[in-house]
């Protein structure tokens, strides 16, 4: 089984662990991922934020690159990239004028339909769920995970067409397939502040604090995410949030693919868990999981 794969800028740097763990999971499942050599940035928030046309042209160009691989489906792990690809498809399918402007800007037009999928969508398929369950070699029963979906995976529903926008369960179900306990909580899709991270960190700290607080209130000892910016906000800024709001969280933040890969037997080191700011060594070293963080 083969899919095209679009990592996006973050997965090649600050979100490297997401890239490594996603590839680990899919390789174990016997899926080949083909990354087009010359993909470009999808534009993320800054592009659509200043120019609708630029914000759609950049992902559309990437779809043209993917078409050259002759593969009909592309997996896009970063939630922001995923949202931009879906937006480009939605707008070009529903508005011929916009399509024309984009085709002029990128200098080419798609001739075939390409399905854009998030790894959660692929893994939610019954066959993959069954395979995941069969491949569990590590006991992670001490984990109590609050699955944080963030804003862009499911919103707006008519564009993203993935899971349920007010209370999604796909990440929960995929983690439950590897016998990890996930919790019910109220902040699954509340904004962490996203791209304001570099310009207005105080907003990010406030919004992220509320997410961490609710996760703690329901008894979570870990948070699982599917977006490198959410990960950065929840993990990298957790200590300064603790200082500002005079609280203690100590809640390690994982990409859901890291949890899956851990369950499938990969080591913490292979999955870049030592790169996290909030250490997971206590959580993973205790109990029956016996995973060393070093």
């Amino acid at each position: 089984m083969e899919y095209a794969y679009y990592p996006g800028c973050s997965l090649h740097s600050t979100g490297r662990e997401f890239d490594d763990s996603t590839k680990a999971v899919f390789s174990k499942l016997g899926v080949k991922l083909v990354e087009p050599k010359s993909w470009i940035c999808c534009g993320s928030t800054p592009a659509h934020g200043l120019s609708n046309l630029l914000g759609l042209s950049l992902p559309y160009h990437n779809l043209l690159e993917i078409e050259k691989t002759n593969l009909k489906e592309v997996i896009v792990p970063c939630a922001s990239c995923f949202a931009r690809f879906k937006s480009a498809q939605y707008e070009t399918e529903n508005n011929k004028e916009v399509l024309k402007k984009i085709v002029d800007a990128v200098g080419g037009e798609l001739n075939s339909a390409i399905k854009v999928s998030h790894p959660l969508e692929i893994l939610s398929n019954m066959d993959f769920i069954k395979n995941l369950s069969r491949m569990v070699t590590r006991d992670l029963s001490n984990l109590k995970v609050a699955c944080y979906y963030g804003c862009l995976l499911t919103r707006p529903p008519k564009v993203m067409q993935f899971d349920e926008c007010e209370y999604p369960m796909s990440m929960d179900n995929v983690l439950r397939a590897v016998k990890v306990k996930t919790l019910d909580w109220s902040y699954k899709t509340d904004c962490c502040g996203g791209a304001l991270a570099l310009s207005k960190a105080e907003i990010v700290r406030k919004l992220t604090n509320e997410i961490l607080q609710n996760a703690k209130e329901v008894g979570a000892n870990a948070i699982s995410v599917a977006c490198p910016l959410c990960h950065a906000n929840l993990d990298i800024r957790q200590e300064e949030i603790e200082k500002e709001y005079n609280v203690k969280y100590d809640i390690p933040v994982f990409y859901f693919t890291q949890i899956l890969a851990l369950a499938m037997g990969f080591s913490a080191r292979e999955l870049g868990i030592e790169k996290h700011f909030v250490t997971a060594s206590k959580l993973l070293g205790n109990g029956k999981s016996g995973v060393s963080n070093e």
Partner: protein
Amino acid sequence: MDDKPIILQNYEFGAKINSISGENVNLCYQCKKCASGCPVSYLMDYHPNQIIHATRLGLQELVLNSKTIWLCSSCETCTTRCPQEIDIRKVLDAIRSVAVSEKIKSKAFGIEAFYKTALNNIRLFGRIYELGLIGELKLRTLEFMKDFGLGIKMIKKGKLKFLPTFKGFFAVKRIFKRVKKDL
């Protein structure tokens, strides 16, 4: 909020924003679901519903000078919940692009600096080069010590690449050039 009355009205402003965004702000009946769900509205000078209404009324100066259009985190909550299916995020994007093209001095300088720095970075490198982005942002904002400790820790943990790649450089340059009139 300003206490001097906003008098200047441009009746074509609403139509201009409708045209750029592809949305119709005239559908709004002020239910305020957008403002209620907006995670950043607590800091805004005008709530999202007020910006929509002001756009309809042609209060161009108010709208283009608002903090609102810059504080928006693009979380898509308003867009998802609007009963009239107005894509409010796109409307704000359109207003922001007009503000930039008319060189309006943003009330949220740091946020505008980030957007422009990020686009510059994408145009220069084809893919985001984070160290370069942070460097240029600091030069624009002169906030050299901001997040300094975090930055060092990130470099130590190998989270930041030292060198950019230039893959897709020509493709990106071409796209930016052709879109230029839109920016």
